[in-house]
Protein backbone atom coordinates (compact mmCIF):
# COMPACT_ATOMS: atom_id res chain seq x y z
CA UNK A 1 0.00 0.00 0.00
CA UNK A 2 1.31 3.43 -0.92
CA UNK A 3 2.28 5.58 2.03
CA UNK A 4 0.09 8.62 2.64
CA UNK A 5 1.04 12.01 1.20
CA UNK A 6 0.88 13.52 4.66
CA UNK A 7 0.06 12.35 8.14
CA UNK A 8 0.00 13.71 11.66
CA UNK A 9 0.35 11.68 14.81
CA UNK A 10 -1.05 13.10 18.03
CA UNK A 11 -0.11 16.58 16.89
CA UNK A 12 -0.39 19.23 19.58
CA UNK A 13 0.53 22.88 19.50
CA UNK A 14 0.29 25.35 22.33
CA UNK A 15 0.64 29.11 22.34
CA UNK A 16 1.15 29.89 25.99
CA UNK A 17 -1.94 28.64 27.76
CA UNK A 18 -3.94 28.20 24.57
CA UNK A 19 -4.10 24.79 22.93
CA UNK A 20 -4.40 25.55 19.21
CA UNK A 21 -4.15 21.87 18.23
CA UNK A 22 -5.14 18.98 20.45
CA UNK A 23 -3.80 15.58 19.51
CA UNK A 24 -4.64 15.79 15.83
CA UNK A 25 -4.35 12.57 13.83
CA UNK A 26 -4.73 12.95 10.08
CA UNK A 27 -3.91 10.92 7.03
CA UNK A 28 -4.02 12.47 3.58
CA UNK A 29 -3.86 10.06 0.68
CA UNK A 30 -1.75 10.70 -2.38
CA UNK A 31 -3.68 12.36 -5.16
CA UNK A 32 -6.61 13.52 -3.07
CA UNK A 33 -7.95 16.96 -2.28
CA UNK A 34 -8.32 17.15 1.48
CA UNK A 35 -10.47 19.96 2.79
CA UNK A 36 -9.82 21.16 6.31
CA UNK A 37 -12.93 22.93 7.41
CA UNK A 38 -13.44 25.08 10.47
CA UNK A 39 -14.16 28.57 11.70
CA UNK A 40 -11.54 31.22 12.28
CA UNK A 41 -9.36 30.30 15.20
CA UNK A 42 -10.12 26.58 15.04
CA UNK A 43 -6.50 25.62 14.38
CA UNK A 44 -6.43 25.36 10.58
CA UNK A 45 -3.60 27.80 9.97
CA UNK A 46 -1.56 26.41 12.83
CA UNK A 47 -1.75 22.94 11.31
CA UNK A 48 -0.82 24.14 7.84
CA UNK A 49 2.13 26.15 9.19
CA UNK A 50 3.41 23.07 10.97
CA UNK A 51 3.07 20.99 7.81
CA UNK A 52 4.95 23.68 5.87
CA UNK A 53 7.81 23.75 8.42
CA UNK A 54 7.09 27.26 9.65
CA UNK A 55 6.03 26.09 13.10
CA UNK A 56 7.07 23.13 15.20
CA UNK A 57 4.65 20.96 17.15
CA UNK A 58 4.57 21.17 20.93
CA UNK A 59 4.19 17.39 20.88
CA UNK A 60 3.36 14.68 18.39
CA UNK A 61 4.76 14.62 14.88
CA UNK A 62 3.88 15.14 11.25
CA UNK A 63 5.17 13.77 7.97
CA UNK A 64 4.83 15.17 4.49
CA UNK A 65 5.65 12.95 1.51
CA UNK A 66 7.48 10.61 3.83
CA UNK A 67 9.62 13.30 5.49
CA UNK A 68 9.37 14.53 9.05
CA UNK A 69 8.41 18.20 9.14
CA UNK A 70 10.90 18.90 11.91
CA UNK A 71 13.82 16.58 11.21
CA UNK A 72 13.67 16.66 7.39
CA UNK A 73 12.53 20.23 6.83
CA UNK A 74 14.68 20.72 3.78
CA UNK A 75 13.28 17.65 2.02
CA UNK A 76 9.74 18.76 2.79
CA UNK A 77 10.36 22.26 1.43
CA UNK A 78 11.70 20.92 -1.86
CA UNK A 79 8.49 19.02 -2.51
CA UNK A 80 5.68 21.27 -1.41
CA UNK A 81 4.02 24.44 -2.65
CA UNK A 82 2.39 26.78 -0.18
CA UNK A 83 -0.04 29.67 -0.42
CA UNK A 84 -0.67 31.02 3.04
CA UNK A 85 -3.78 32.81 4.21
CA UNK A 86 -2.40 36.30 3.68
CA UNK A 87 -0.90 36.78 0.24
CA UNK A 88 2.86 36.95 0.63
CA UNK A 89 4.23 39.04 -2.20
CA UNK A 90 6.86 41.71 -2.67
CA UNK A 91 4.94 44.73 -3.95
CA UNK A 92 8.02 46.26 -5.56
CA UNK A 93 8.65 43.35 -7.91
CA UNK A 94 6.67 42.72 -11.05
CA UNK A 95 4.62 39.55 -11.18
CA UNK A 96 7.04 38.14 -13.71
CA UNK A 97 10.08 38.92 -11.55
CA UNK A 98 8.46 37.35 -8.52
CA UNK A 99 7.67 34.11 -10.33
CA UNK A 100 11.16 33.96 -11.82
CA UNK A 101 12.79 34.51 -8.44
CA UNK A 102 10.57 31.87 -6.92
CA UNK A 103 11.51 29.38 -9.63
CA UNK A 104 15.16 30.25 -9.28
CA UNK A 105 15.13 29.60 -5.53
CA UNK A 106 13.83 26.12 -6.31
CA UNK A 107 16.82 25.54 -8.55
CA UNK A 108 14.96 25.77 -11.87
CA UNK A 109 16.86 26.86 -14.95
CA UNK A 110 15.78 29.87 -17.00
CA UNK A 111 14.16 27.68 -19.66
CA UNK A 112 12.36 25.61 -17.03
CA UNK A 113 11.00 28.77 -15.47
CA UNK A 114 9.84 29.98 -18.89
CA UNK A 115 8.07 26.67 -19.38
CA UNK A 116 6.42 26.75 -15.99
CA UNK A 117 5.22 30.33 -16.37
CA UNK A 118 3.73 29.39 -19.73
CA UNK A 119 1.96 26.44 -18.10
CA UNK A 120 0.44 28.43 -15.25
CA UNK A 121 -0.31 31.54 -17.30
CA UNK A 122 -3.95 30.47 -17.51
CA UNK A 123 -4.28 30.53 -13.76
CA UNK A 124 -2.46 33.81 -13.36
CA UNK A 125 -4.64 35.41 -16.03
CA UNK A 126 -2.87 38.71 -15.63
CA UNK A 127 -2.04 39.43 -19.24
CA UNK A 128 0.30 42.39 -19.60
CA UNK A 129 -0.06 43.13 -15.90
CA UNK A 130 2.46 40.38 -15.27
CA UNK A 131 5.12 42.97 -16.13
CA UNK A 132 3.68 45.60 -13.81
CA UNK A 133 4.70 46.09 -10.21
CA UNK A 134 2.61 43.99 -7.85
CA UNK A 135 1.71 47.10 -5.85
CA UNK A 136 -0.64 48.02 -8.71
CA UNK A 137 -2.56 44.71 -8.57
CA UNK A 138 -6.06 44.24 -7.21
CA UNK A 139 -6.69 41.83 -4.35
CA UNK A 140 -7.84 39.11 -6.73
CA UNK A 141 -4.79 39.51 -8.96
CA UNK A 142 -2.51 39.26 -5.93
CA UNK A 143 -4.26 36.12 -4.73
CA UNK A 144 -3.91 34.45 -8.12
CA UNK A 145 -0.26 35.42 -8.37
CA UNK A 146 0.32 34.09 -4.86
CA UNK A 147 -1.16 30.76 -5.92
CA UNK A 148 0.95 30.76 -9.07
CA UNK A 149 4.07 31.38 -6.97
CA UNK A 150 3.18 28.27 -4.97
CA UNK A 151 3.02 26.26 -8.20
CA UNK A 152 5.94 27.56 -10.23
CA UNK A 153 8.32 24.81 -9.10
CA UNK A 154 5.81 22.07 -9.84
CA UNK A 155 5.35 20.77 -6.28
CA UNK A 156 4.24 17.25 -5.45
CA UNK A 157 1.87 18.50 -2.80
CA UNK A 158 0.12 21.82 -2.47
CA UNK A 159 -0.94 23.50 0.78
CA UNK A 160 -3.54 26.22 0.42
CA UNK A 161 -4.63 28.19 3.45
CA UNK A 162 -8.02 29.68 2.68
CA UNK A 163 -7.13 30.16 -0.98
CA UNK A 164 -10.26 32.06 -1.95
CA UNK A 165 -10.55 34.27 1.09
CA UNK A 166 -11.35 37.80 -0.06
CA UNK A 167 -11.81 36.88 -3.72
CA UNK A 168 -14.70 38.03 -5.88
CA UNK A 169 -16.99 35.22 -7.16
CA UNK A 170 -15.37 35.05 -10.61
CA UNK A 171 -11.83 34.85 -9.24
CA UNK A 172 -13.04 32.29 -6.76
CA UNK A 173 -14.38 30.08 -9.53
CA UNK A 174 -11.09 30.38 -11.41
CA UNK A 175 -9.16 29.23 -8.38
CA UNK A 176 -11.58 26.35 -7.86
CA UNK A 177 -11.19 25.29 -11.46
CA UNK A 178 -7.42 25.40 -11.21
CA UNK A 179 -7.45 23.34 -8.02
CA UNK A 180 -9.64 20.74 -9.74
CA UNK A 181 -7.38 20.78 -12.80
CA UNK A 182 -4.18 20.40 -10.78
CA UNK A 183 -5.68 17.45 -9.01
CA UNK A 184 -7.37 15.73 -11.93
CA UNK A 185 -4.79 16.32 -14.68
CA UNK A 186 -1.60 16.07 -12.68
CA UNK A 187 -2.66 14.05 -9.68
CA UNK A 188 -1.36 16.70 -7.33
CA UNK A 189 -2.21 16.13 -3.69
CA UNK A 190 -3.88 19.23 -2.29
CA UNK A 191 -4.49 20.14 1.32
CA UNK A 192 -6.70 23.15 1.64
CA UNK A 193 -8.16 24.88 4.61
CA UNK A 194 -11.38 26.77 4.29
CA UNK A 195 -14.18 28.24 6.29
CA UNK A 196 -16.48 28.13 3.28
CA UNK A 197 -18.80 25.14 3.30
CA UNK A 198 -19.46 25.23 -0.42
CA UNK A 199 -15.73 25.30 -1.13
CA UNK A 200 -15.09 22.15 0.88
CA UNK A 201 -18.18 20.53 -0.62
CA UNK A 202 -17.17 21.42 -4.20
CA UNK A 203 -13.48 20.62 -4.07
CA UNK A 204 -12.63 18.11 -1.40
CA UNK A 205 -12.52 14.35 -1.83
CA UNK A 206 -12.46 14.14 1.94
CA UNK A 207 -13.18 16.72 4.59
CA UNK A 208 -11.85 17.02 8.11
CA UNK A 209 -13.78 19.28 10.42
CA UNK A 210 -11.74 20.98 13.10
CA UNK A 211 -13.24 22.68 16.11
CA UNK A 212 -11.27 24.25 18.93
CA UNK A 213 -8.12 22.42 17.91
CA UNK A 214 -9.61 18.93 17.58
CA UNK A 215 -10.78 16.93 14.60
CA UNK A 216 -14.45 16.34 15.27
CA UNK A 217 -15.49 14.64 12.02
CA UNK A 218 -13.83 13.27 8.93
CA UNK A 219 -15.00 11.64 5.72
CA UNK A 220 -16.16 12.36 2.22
CA UNK A 221 -18.67 15.21 2.01
CA UNK A 222 -21.38 12.68 1.16
CA UNK A 223 -20.49 10.43 4.09
CA UNK A 224 -20.54 13.34 6.45
CA UNK A 225 -23.86 14.61 5.16
CA UNK A 226 -25.34 11.15 5.31
CA UNK A 227 -24.29 10.92 8.93
CA UNK A 228 -26.78 13.64 9.83
CA UNK A 229 -29.56 12.50 7.57
CA UNK A 230 -30.29 12.83 3.93
CA UNK A 231 -32.74 15.74 4.18
CA UNK A 232 -33.28 18.60 6.57
CA UNK A 233 -36.59 20.29 7.20
CA UNK A 234 -36.06 23.79 8.51
CA UNK A 235 -38.93 25.34 10.41
CA UNK A 236 -38.67 29.03 11.21
CA UNK A 237 -40.86 30.11 14.09
CA UNK A 238 -42.58 33.44 14.40
CA UNK A 239 -41.79 33.56 18.08
CA UNK A 240 -38.29 32.74 19.25
CA UNK A 241 -39.52 31.72 22.69
CA UNK A 242 -42.07 29.21 21.37
CA UNK A 243 -41.40 25.63 22.46
CA UNK A 244 -40.43 22.91 20.03
CA UNK A 245 -43.06 20.17 19.94
CA UNK A 246 -41.63 17.25 21.85
CA UNK A 247 -43.14 14.63 19.57
CA UNK A 248 -41.13 15.71 16.51
CA UNK A 249 -38.33 13.29 17.27
CA UNK A 250 -40.82 10.41 17.40
CA UNK A 251 -42.29 11.04 13.95
CA UNK A 252 -41.58 8.17 11.54
CA UNK A 253 -38.41 8.79 9.52
CA UNK A 254 -37.11 11.64 11.70
CA UNK A 255 -33.49 11.16 12.74
CA UNK A 256 -32.86 14.16 14.94
CA UNK A 257 -34.24 17.52 15.98
CA UNK A 258 -32.06 20.56 16.67
CA UNK A 259 -33.10 23.98 17.84
CA UNK A 260 -31.11 27.18 17.25
CA UNK A 261 -32.85 30.46 17.99
CA UNK A 262 -36.05 30.67 15.94
CA UNK A 263 -35.02 27.73 13.76
CA UNK A 264 -35.90 24.10 14.28
CA UNK A 265 -33.99 21.71 12.07
CA UNK A 266 -35.36 18.25 11.59
CA UNK A 267 -33.07 15.71 9.96
CA UNK A 268 -34.88 12.95 8.12
CA UNK A 269 -34.21 10.19 5.66
CA UNK A 270 -37.05 11.38 3.41
CA UNK A 271 -37.77 15.03 4.00
CA UNK A 272 -40.76 15.25 1.70
CA UNK A 273 -42.52 12.53 3.66
CA UNK A 274 -42.18 14.29 7.02
CA UNK A 275 -42.92 17.91 6.05
CA UNK A 276 -46.67 17.37 6.46
CA UNK A 277 -46.54 15.63 9.86
CA UNK A 278 -44.10 18.29 11.10
CA UNK A 279 -46.43 21.11 10.06
CA UNK A 280 -49.35 19.35 11.72
CA UNK A 281 -47.37 18.91 14.91
CA UNK A 282 -46.67 22.64 15.16
CA UNK A 283 -50.24 23.51 14.26
CA UNK A 284 -51.73 21.21 16.89
CA UNK A 285 -49.69 23.00 19.56
CA UNK A 286 -50.59 26.47 18.27
CA UNK A 287 -46.96 27.29 17.53
CA UNK A 288 -46.89 29.97 14.83
CA UNK A 289 -44.60 29.07 11.96
CA UNK A 290 -43.16 31.66 9.60
CA UNK A 291 -42.01 29.20 6.95
CA UNK A 292 -40.97 25.62 6.36
CA UNK A 293 -38.28 24.69 3.89
CA UNK A 294 -36.87 21.39 2.81
CA UNK A 295 -33.24 20.99 1.80
CA UNK A 296 -30.63 18.33 1.65
CA UNK A 297 -28.12 18.12 4.48
CA UNK A 298 -25.09 20.41 4.20
CA UNK A 299 -21.69 20.35 5.78
CA UNK A 300 -22.96 23.07 8.07
CA UNK A 301 -25.47 20.55 9.40
CA UNK A 302 -22.58 18.19 9.96
CA UNK A 303 -20.69 20.91 11.75
CA UNK A 304 -23.74 21.70 13.85
CA UNK A 305 -24.23 18.04 14.61
CA UNK A 306 -20.69 17.55 15.90
CA UNK A 307 -20.06 20.90 17.56
CA UNK A 308 -23.46 22.32 18.44
CA UNK A 309 -22.59 25.52 16.58
CA UNK A 310 -23.18 26.85 13.11
CA UNK A 311 -20.03 27.34 11.06
CA UNK A 312 -21.11 30.70 9.69
CA UNK A 313 -21.75 32.04 13.14
CA UNK A 314 -19.07 30.18 15.03
CA UNK A 315 -17.23 32.33 17.51
CA UNK A 316 -14.22 33.63 15.66
CA UNK A 317 -12.64 34.82 18.87
CA UNK A 318 -12.22 31.33 20.27
CA UNK A 319 -8.51 30.94 19.77
CA UNK A 320 -7.44 33.11 16.85
CA UNK A 321 -4.16 31.39 16.46
CA UNK A 322 -3.67 33.24 13.18
CA UNK A 323 -3.06 36.38 15.20
CA UNK A 324 -0.56 34.59 17.33
CA UNK A 325 1.41 33.12 14.51
Amino acid at each position, binding site marked *: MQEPAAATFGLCRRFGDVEALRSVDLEIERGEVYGFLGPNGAGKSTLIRIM*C*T*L*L*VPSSGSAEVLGFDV*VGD*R*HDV*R*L*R*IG*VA*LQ*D*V*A*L*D*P*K*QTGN*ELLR*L*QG*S*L*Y*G*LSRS*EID*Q*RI*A*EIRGLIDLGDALDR*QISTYSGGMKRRLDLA*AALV*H*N*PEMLFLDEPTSGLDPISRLKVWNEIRRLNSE*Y*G*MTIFLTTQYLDEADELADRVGIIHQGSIVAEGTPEELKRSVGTDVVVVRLSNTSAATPDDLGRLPGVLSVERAGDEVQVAALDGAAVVGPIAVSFSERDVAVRDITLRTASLDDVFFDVTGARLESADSADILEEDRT
Partner: protein
Amino acid sequence: MTPRAATIKAREGGFWHDLSAIAGRALRAIPRERESVIPALLIPVFWLLVSVGALETIAGSTYPGLDFRGFQLPVAVVFAVTGVSRAPELVLDIQNGYFDRLTITPVRRSSLLLGMMMADLALVIVLTIPVLIIGWFVGVGFATGFGGVIVFLALAGLWGLAFTGFLYAIALKTADPAAVTAGLLLFFPFAFLTTTFLPQDALSGWIATAAEYNPMTYLLAALRSLILEGWAWDTLAVGFGAVATIGAVSLSLAVLALRSRLRPR
Protein backbone atom coordinates in the same frame (compact mmCIF):
# COMPACT_ATOMS: atom_id res chain seq x y z
CA MET B 1 -0.04 20.97 -22.81
CA THR B 2 3.35 19.94 -21.51
CA PRO B 3 3.21 17.11 -18.99
CA ARG B 4 4.94 19.19 -16.37
CA ALA B 5 5.08 16.73 -13.51
CA ALA B 6 7.31 14.47 -15.53
CA THR B 7 9.81 17.07 -16.64
CA ILE B 8 10.46 19.71 -14.00
CA LYS B 9 11.41 19.06 -10.42
CA ALA B 10 12.56 21.44 -7.72
CA ARG B 11 16.13 21.00 -6.55
CA GLU B 12 18.77 22.83 -4.59
CA GLY B 13 20.29 25.70 -6.50
CA GLY B 14 23.48 25.92 -4.47
CA PHE B 15 24.90 28.80 -2.47
CA TRP B 16 26.10 31.02 -5.33
CA HIS B 17 22.91 30.47 -7.32
CA ASP B 18 20.80 31.46 -4.31
CA LEU B 19 23.07 34.39 -3.48
CA SER B 20 22.82 35.83 -6.99
CA ALA B 21 19.05 35.33 -7.06
CA ILE B 22 18.52 37.21 -3.79
CA ALA B 23 21.06 39.90 -4.68
CA GLY B 24 19.46 40.28 -8.12
CA ARG B 25 16.09 40.94 -6.56
CA ALA B 26 17.61 43.56 -4.24
CA LEU B 27 19.49 45.24 -7.08
CA ARG B 28 16.38 45.39 -9.27
CA ALA B 29 14.56 47.18 -6.46
CA ILE B 30 17.13 49.97 -6.09
CA PRO B 31 16.13 52.05 -9.14
CA ARG B 32 12.53 51.82 -7.93
CA GLU B 33 13.48 53.39 -4.61
CA ARG B 34 14.97 56.66 -5.76
CA GLU B 35 13.54 58.32 -2.68
CA SER B 36 16.03 56.43 -0.52
CA VAL B 37 18.99 56.66 -2.90
CA ILE B 38 18.91 60.37 -3.77
CA PRO B 39 19.32 61.61 -0.15
CA ALA B 40 22.26 59.24 0.27
CA LEU B 41 23.88 61.12 -2.61
CA LEU B 42 22.86 64.65 -1.65
CA ILE B 43 23.89 64.51 2.01
CA PRO B 44 27.61 63.90 1.38
CA VAL B 45 27.73 66.55 -1.34
CA PHE B 46 26.06 69.00 1.01
CA TRP B 47 28.48 68.02 3.77
CA LEU B 48 31.52 68.48 1.56
CA LEU B 49 30.45 71.88 0.31
CA VAL B 50 29.41 73.21 3.73
CA SER B 51 32.39 71.89 5.70
CA VAL B 52 34.88 73.09 3.13
CA GLY B 53 33.12 76.44 2.76
CA ALA B 54 32.92 77.02 6.51
CA LEU B 55 36.18 75.58 7.80
CA GLU B 56 38.74 75.55 5.02
CA THR B 57 40.14 79.01 5.78
CA ILE B 58 40.41 78.36 9.52
CA ALA B 59 41.95 74.92 8.94
CA GLY B 60 44.42 76.40 6.49
CA SER B 61 45.60 79.01 8.95
CA THR B 62 45.79 76.53 11.85
CA TYR B 63 47.41 73.71 9.87
CA PRO B 64 49.46 75.25 7.08
CA GLY B 65 49.86 72.87 4.19
CA LEU B 66 46.79 70.75 5.05
CA ASP B 67 44.69 69.97 1.98
CA PHE B 68 41.38 70.41 3.81
CA ARG B 69 39.30 69.36 0.82
CA GLY B 70 41.21 66.10 0.60
CA PHE B 71 40.89 65.80 4.36
CA GLN B 72 37.09 66.18 4.22
CA LEU B 73 36.34 64.07 1.15
CA PRO B 74 36.61 60.74 3.05
CA VAL B 75 34.18 62.08 5.65
CA ALA B 76 31.69 62.90 2.90
CA VAL B 77 32.14 59.43 1.43
CA VAL B 78 31.59 57.80 4.82
CA PHE B 79 28.41 59.85 5.15
CA ALA B 80 27.34 58.57 1.72
CA VAL B 81 27.87 54.91 2.44
CA THR B 82 26.92 54.55 6.09
CA GLY B 83 23.41 53.29 6.61
CA VAL B 84 22.78 52.40 2.97
CA SER B 85 20.95 49.16 3.57
CA ARG B 86 18.08 46.92 2.52
CA ALA B 87 17.24 46.41 6.19
CA PRO B 88 14.04 48.51 6.03
CA GLU B 89 12.90 46.41 3.05
CA LEU B 90 13.72 43.27 5.03
CA VAL B 91 11.39 44.51 7.75
CA LEU B 92 8.64 44.94 5.13
CA ASP B 93 9.29 41.42 3.86
CA ILE B 94 8.88 40.06 7.38
CA GLN B 95 5.77 42.10 8.04
CA ASN B 96 3.97 41.24 4.80
CA GLY B 97 4.81 37.54 4.95
CA TYR B 98 7.13 37.48 1.94
CA PHE B 99 10.03 36.50 4.16
CA ASP B 100 8.04 33.42 5.17
CA ARG B 101 7.51 32.61 1.51
CA LEU B 102 11.26 32.80 0.96
CA THR B 103 12.00 30.63 3.98
CA ILE B 104 9.62 27.92 2.81
CA THR B 105 11.80 27.53 -0.29
CA PRO B 106 14.98 25.44 -0.12
CA VAL B 107 17.10 28.61 -0.39
CA ARG B 108 20.33 28.63 1.60
CA ARG B 109 19.52 30.59 4.73
CA SER B 110 22.73 32.59 4.65
CA SER B 111 21.89 33.76 1.12
CA LEU B 112 18.82 35.55 2.42
CA LEU B 113 21.11 37.91 4.33
CA LEU B 114 24.23 37.93 2.21
CA GLY B 115 22.31 38.48 -1.03
CA MET B 116 20.92 41.74 0.29
CA MET B 117 24.30 42.75 1.64
CA MET B 118 25.90 42.17 -1.75
CA ALA B 119 23.36 44.56 -3.25
CA ASP B 120 24.20 47.05 -0.52
CA LEU B 121 27.88 46.75 -1.33
CA ALA B 122 27.23 47.42 -5.00
CA LEU B 123 25.09 50.45 -4.20
CA VAL B 124 27.63 51.81 -1.73
CA ILE B 125 30.36 51.67 -4.34
CA VAL B 126 28.10 53.28 -6.92
CA LEU B 127 27.26 56.07 -4.46
CA THR B 128 30.93 56.68 -3.71
CA ILE B 129 31.87 57.35 -7.32
CA PRO B 130 29.90 60.60 -7.83
CA VAL B 131 31.24 61.94 -4.53
CA LEU B 132 34.78 61.26 -5.73
CA ILE B 133 34.00 62.94 -9.04
CA ILE B 134 32.71 66.03 -7.23
CA GLY B 135 35.87 65.93 -5.13
CA TRP B 136 37.92 65.82 -8.32
CA PHE B 137 36.03 68.84 -9.63
CA VAL B 138 36.92 70.82 -6.49
CA GLY B 139 40.54 69.81 -6.80
CA VAL B 140 40.92 66.64 -4.74
CA GLY B 141 43.33 64.20 -6.37
CA PHE B 142 44.70 60.86 -5.22
CA ALA B 143 48.35 60.68 -4.23
CA THR B 144 48.09 56.95 -4.93
CA GLY B 145 46.64 57.36 -8.42
CA PHE B 146 43.97 55.11 -9.94
CA GLY B 147 45.05 52.17 -7.81
CA GLY B 148 44.33 54.29 -4.77
CA VAL B 149 40.83 55.04 -6.05
CA ILE B 150 40.14 51.31 -6.30
CA VAL B 151 41.41 50.68 -2.78
CA PHE B 152 39.42 53.69 -1.56
CA LEU B 153 36.23 52.28 -3.10
CA ALA B 154 36.90 48.87 -1.60
CA LEU B 155 37.54 50.24 1.88
CA ALA B 156 34.53 52.57 1.78
CA GLY B 157 32.36 49.72 0.47
CA LEU B 158 33.50 47.34 3.20
CA TRP B 159 32.76 49.97 5.83
CA GLY B 160 29.25 50.39 4.43
CA LEU B 161 28.85 46.63 4.54
CA ALA B 162 30.19 46.40 8.09
CA PHE B 163 27.83 49.06 9.37
CA THR B 164 24.80 47.62 7.66
CA GLY B 165 25.25 44.42 9.64
CA PHE B 166 23.95 46.28 12.70
CA LEU B 167 20.85 47.36 10.81
CA TYR B 168 20.13 43.83 9.57
CA ALA B 169 20.55 42.50 13.09
CA ILE B 170 18.00 45.03 14.34
CA ALA B 171 15.64 44.35 11.42
CA LEU B 172 15.73 40.59 11.93
CA LYS B 173 15.45 40.80 15.68
CA THR B 174 12.64 43.34 15.89
CA ALA B 175 10.90 43.41 12.49
CA ASP B 176 10.20 47.00 13.43
CA PRO B 177 10.92 49.84 10.98
CA ALA B 178 11.18 52.37 13.80
CA ALA B 179 13.87 50.27 15.48
CA VAL B 180 15.86 50.12 12.23
CA THR B 181 15.62 53.88 11.85
CA ALA B 182 16.74 54.28 15.46
CA GLY B 183 19.67 52.00 14.67
CA LEU B 184 21.04 54.68 12.39
CA LEU B 185 21.79 56.66 15.56
CA LEU B 186 24.72 54.29 15.98
CA PHE B 187 26.34 56.29 13.22
CA PHE B 188 26.67 59.44 15.31
CA PRO B 189 29.26 58.27 17.84
CA PHE B 190 31.17 56.59 15.04
CA ALA B 191 31.05 59.72 12.88
CA PHE B 192 31.61 62.51 15.34
CA LEU B 193 33.74 61.10 18.19
CA THR B 194 36.65 60.98 15.81
CA THR B 195 38.75 63.08 13.45
CA THR B 196 35.82 64.34 11.41
CA PHE B 197 36.86 67.99 11.65
CA LEU B 198 40.42 67.94 12.95
CA PRO B 199 43.51 65.74 12.73
CA GLN B 200 43.94 63.32 15.63
CA ASP B 201 46.85 65.17 17.19
CA ALA B 202 44.68 68.30 17.42
CA LEU B 203 42.05 66.56 19.56
CA SER B 204 42.22 66.85 23.33
CA GLY B 205 40.46 65.63 26.46
CA TRP B 206 37.74 62.99 26.31
CA ILE B 207 37.21 63.47 22.58
CA ALA B 208 40.83 62.45 21.99
CA THR B 209 40.31 59.35 24.14
CA ALA B 210 37.08 58.47 22.36
CA ALA B 211 38.71 58.97 18.96
CA GLU B 212 41.56 56.70 19.95
CA TYR B 213 39.13 53.83 20.54
CA ASN B 214 36.81 54.68 17.63
CA PRO B 215 37.43 52.44 14.61
CA MET B 216 36.23 55.29 12.39
CA THR B 217 39.42 57.18 13.26
CA TYR B 218 41.50 54.50 11.60
CA LEU B 219 39.14 54.15 8.66
CA LEU B 220 39.34 57.88 7.97
CA ALA B 221 43.12 57.83 8.41
CA ALA B 222 43.42 55.06 5.82
CA LEU B 223 41.09 56.78 3.35
CA ARG B 224 42.88 60.10 3.81
CA SER B 225 46.27 58.49 3.37
CA LEU B 226 45.26 57.35 -0.13
CA ILE B 227 44.43 60.94 -1.06
CA LEU B 228 47.00 62.91 0.85
CA GLU B 229 50.05 60.71 1.50
CA GLY B 230 50.53 57.90 -0.97
CA TRP B 231 50.78 54.19 -0.17
CA ALA B 232 50.95 54.15 3.64
CA TRP B 233 50.70 50.41 4.10
CA ASP B 234 50.62 50.40 7.90
CA THR B 235 47.84 52.99 7.96
CA LEU B 236 45.90 51.02 5.35
CA ALA B 237 46.33 47.77 7.25
CA VAL B 238 45.04 49.34 10.44
CA GLY B 239 42.13 50.87 8.51
CA PHE B 240 41.15 47.53 6.97
CA GLY B 241 41.60 45.91 10.37
CA ALA B 242 39.27 48.41 12.02
CA VAL B 243 36.60 47.80 9.39
CA ALA B 244 37.07 44.04 9.72
CA THR B 245 36.63 44.28 13.49
CA ILE B 246 33.38 46.23 13.21
CA GLY B 247 32.26 43.91 10.41
CA ALA B 248 32.96 40.81 12.51
CA VAL B 249 30.84 42.18 15.35
CA SER B 250 27.96 43.43 13.22
CA LEU B 251 27.80 40.38 10.97
CA SER B 252 27.89 38.05 13.96
CA LEU B 253 24.93 39.90 15.42
CA ALA B 254 23.12 39.76 12.08
CA VAL B 255 23.74 36.02 11.67
CA LEU B 256 22.54 35.35 15.22
CA ALA B 257 19.42 37.40 14.55
CA LEU B 258 18.84 35.52 11.28
CA ARG B 259 19.14 32.16 13.03
CA SER B 260 16.73 33.30 15.67
CA ARG B 261 14.26 34.56 13.05
CA LEU B 262 14.47 31.33 11.03
CA ARG B 263 14.15 28.96 13.97
CA PRO B 264 10.69 27.40 13.74
CA ARG B 265 8.83 28.37 16.87
